[in-house]
């Protein structure tokens, strides 16, 4: 028996790579995603993503649904920034119909989108820390995210998937408590944000794990279409809120967070700073929500004029583009969602080569992939 093992273990395996499947059932893939990782010892030789485990054919489904009905499908793409996805379709439809929504709708949409962004970044923060082996931050972030979800639940009725937008406005008016609760949340979050920095950002282990890991240059980020915080961590000024403002973003002052290092830590810092920046946006808007109707008058059956319509929005993960091709019917002819995560995924192999397997997880965490967004 002993010889058999020697034979198995050594003969003919010199220089062979260890091929490992990470996923579909793996603690750190955040969904059903499979990476085939080739390893030399601990060092990653190549990463091959295999997606499609939860592909639902949203684009195909859209072709048989009317425009208001599409919206609730977009919730399920990047479910962490569901409101922003909703907004994208609504803005596209409004643009096609040449409807200018009132400021009230714009303000509410923007506030909720920014709250949604904070909630999404909080979830990212917690799961990235968990990927790196720190479990406690997970619970702190979820505790604070819960407050945002409560605000959402009170106003929209949903905690994760809101379906709060409809073409021409919103489903409901904001709840009377909305402003009060949001104003309570801002100082509370600022306080716990300090704790996050103490617990994780300043931590020497965390910094050593992320600094200089997963380097992505600006040119690569542009070529691979890496947008959102991951792109801005490489110095790629890709924020749609600045580049092509929509909703109320042209009315508020905020900075586009840019870091030039391009490593995991830069991506981490971009998101952390973005949360504070979102708070600033909310602070500017929350007291100034104008009075008015929460929904514009729309026809009962919405038919877009024939043509092609694009709408870009900045979700928590990057640039989401909705491309609607209409043939004049009440259902779209073709809908394409350009999801940010698909492009982000494509750099996975590039930036995790020659890193250790533990870095692969950290890089995956810092890219913040949401698998349903890839497998639409």
């Amino acid at each position, binding site marked *: *028996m002993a010889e058999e*093992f020697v034979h198995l273990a050594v003969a003919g395996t010199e220089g062979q790579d*260890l091929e*490992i499947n990470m996923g579909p059932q*793996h*603690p*750190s893939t955040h969904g059903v995603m499979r990476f085939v990782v080739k*390893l030399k010892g*601990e060092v990653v030789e190549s990463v091959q993503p295999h997606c499609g485990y939860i592909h639902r054919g949203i684009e195909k489904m859209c072709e048989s649904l009317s425009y208001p009905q599409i919206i609730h499908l977009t919730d399920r793409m990047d479910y962490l920034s569901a409101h922003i996805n909703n907004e994208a379709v609504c803005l596209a439809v409004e643009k096609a119909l040449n409807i200018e929504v009132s400021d009230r709708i714009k303000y509410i949409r923007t506030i909720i989108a920014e709250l949604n962004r904070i909630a999404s970044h909080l979830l990212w923060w917690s799961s990235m*820390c*968990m*990927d*790196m*082996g*720190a*479990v*406690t931050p*997970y*619970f*702190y972030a979820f*505790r604070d995210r819960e407050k945002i979800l409560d605000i959402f639940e009170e106003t929209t009725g949903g905690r994760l998937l809101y379906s709060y937008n409809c073409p021409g406005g919103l489903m409901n008016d904001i709840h009377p408590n909305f402003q009060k609760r949001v104003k309570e949340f801002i100082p509370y979050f600022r306080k716990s944000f300090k704790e996050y920095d103490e*617990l*994780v950002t300043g*931590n020497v*282990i*965390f910094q*050593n*794990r992320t600094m200089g890991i997963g380097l992505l240059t600006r040119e690569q980020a542009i070529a691979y279409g890496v947008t959102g915080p991951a792109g801005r961590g490489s110095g790629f000024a890709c924020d749609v809120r600045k580049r092509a403002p929509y909703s109320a973003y042209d009315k508020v002052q905020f900075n586009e967070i840019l870091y030039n290092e391009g490593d995991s830590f830069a991506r981490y810092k971009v998101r952390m700073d973005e949360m504070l920046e979102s708070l600033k946006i909310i602070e500017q808007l929350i007291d100034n929500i104008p009075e008015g109707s929460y929904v514009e008058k729309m026809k009962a059956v919405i038919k877009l004029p024939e043509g092609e319509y694009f709408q870009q929005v900045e979700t928590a993960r990057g640039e989401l583009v909705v491309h609607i091709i209409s043939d004049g019917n009440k259902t779209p002819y073709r809908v394409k969602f350009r999801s940010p995560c698909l492009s982000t995924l494509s750099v996975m192999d590039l930036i995790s080569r020659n890193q*250790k*397997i*533990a*870095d*692969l*997880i950290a890089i995956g965490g810092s890219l913040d992939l949401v698998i349903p967004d890839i497998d639409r």
Partner: protein
Amino acid sequence: MQGVLYDFTGLIQSIDAVFRASMSDLWATVLEYAIIGIIYLVIYALIGLFLVYAERKVCAFIQVRLGPNRVGPKGFFQTIADFIKLLLKENIKIKNADGVLFNLAPFIVIVASFLTFGTVPFAKGLQGIDLNIGVFFIMAVSSMGVVGILLGGWSSNSKYSLIGAMRSGAQIVSYELSVGLSLVTMVILTGTMQLSQIIELQSDGWFIFKGHIPALISLIIMMIASTAEINRGPFDLAEAESELTAGYHTEYSGIKFAFFYLSEYMNMFVVSALVATVFFGGWMPLHIGSWQAFNHIMDFIPPIIWFILKSFALMYVIMLFKWTFPRLRIDQLLKLEWQYLLPISLFNVLLMAFVVYMKWYF
């Protein structure tokens, strides 16, 4: 020197005498051994069960949640329920696994932790194994555990296990040095390696106070290195839940997994008991120089309580490490050992030797 109020030496000797008077020497020895075995088995299991519960509660409180609270009062019997569940689970045999080694691994791990557990001095006279090379013995036996982990990981024929085992091999082997050197530092101060004597020497003050700076450095190094040696976070690379799913024990199920789990917790207990013994006077009450009244009051608290308090405080610190820090990467882990801890502890040995030579200790 103050008299020790609770001394179990006499009691144990009288039991020994009774046995030896009523039967032949051989039978008396066998009977005594059997009693020792049973008692230790029970304590081992109880502490193990309690530690799992304690860890869950500690991490729950840190993480702003309640932790187990369904089975028994405040969830106290949760681990017993878990144990029963693990006992009733099927033991899955992995295809292509090396059956002999696969089954041997839990034995090695448990034997290593049980033997070190035997050396823990609970109170004066209440110590199973009190060799004159006690400190050395603990080091030697505890490093046996890595063999179990390596075997378990390798024989599973799973890639995650293999990486986990390899990591733990490199890791434990490296941190062994720092543990050894920081113990050497303290041995210079004590002049003996027998645990019971080390405690006796601390009756007028714990070594952490007596040895001041070098003892403090040594304590810090010892805490870091021993956390790494028992494979606990942030040094839990061998398990690395987010990378390797469960590391070396990925393929173990049911009771065999439970043994790996148990040994991990018991190693934590042994390590903190060792630190408590060497640095904080083991079961010795807190005595401050010439404050007679204070020392007498302290003496009334039973030594077992002292010992348990100290080792649980240390275990709390080790748990706090795990639930605060992100995991290190393998190269950082080795860098920390070889470029920071080892040079510092080498320096610390010299410092302690110098302090002892100049008689600067108290």
